[in-house]
């Protein structure tokens, strides 16, 4: 079974600074997808970024980028120029090619003014 581990229950960062959230996963699959989802206090989950395992290039979306290390089964999220609106729970998730998304326990990020 696939498992997703987020070892940082809580993190904080000053506004405008950079923060990195960690995620590791365990799988025997070769083809899969990895995601970071953001869940603000309103609780509506929003996709932040997606990485396809067969792509070596790290995905980026504006201020959000990932460091995907397939051999190490590591998938960290870097948020640059942190903004107050980035305050949220962040979930790392794994999906086999077909379906069945598995989430980590989440990291609560607080951006301080």
């Amino acid at each position: 079974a696939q498992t997703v581990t987020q070892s940082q229950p809580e993190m904080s960062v000053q506004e405008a600074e950079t923060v990195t959230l960690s995620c590791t996963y365990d799988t025997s699959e070769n083809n899969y997808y990895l995601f970071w989802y953001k869940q603000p206090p309103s609780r509506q989950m929003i996709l932040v970024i997606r990485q396809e395992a067969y792509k070596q290039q790290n995905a980026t979306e504006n201020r959000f980028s990932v460091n995907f290390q397939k051999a190490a089964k590591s998938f960290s999220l870097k948020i640059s120029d942190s903004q107050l609106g980035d305050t949220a729970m962040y979930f790392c998730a794994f999906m086999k090619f077909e379906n069945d998304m598995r989430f980590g326990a989440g990291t609560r990020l607080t951006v301080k003014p």
Partner: protein
Amino acid sequence: EAGVAQSPRYKIIEKRQSVAFWCNPISGHATLYWYQQILGQGPKLLIQFQNNGVVDDSQLPKDRFSAERLKGVDSTLKIQPAKLEDSAVYLCASSLSGTRGGQETQYFGPGTRLLVL
């Protein structure tokens, strides 16, 4: 474009009572998911529908949980009878086809927060 709608937003019941949650996915989305999110944990998939058929219900506690999507649009998740450990947020999500795996984005609703006393 309207997002995924869920109701009610909050529900408090006593153990052994029944409860039902409703979800209306984004218009045109064929695939609908129900997740359970227990406090301090990530969401866990309970059931996935493709139109009105069940694709995956391997993690649905079928002795007390049931779900249906009769016309392939909106869906209802029921718990009967509820236990204390069912206290959680129940999230509904939808995606366009559900046949493209991780290439397709799942869009989540605001969730229903259930408290079982």
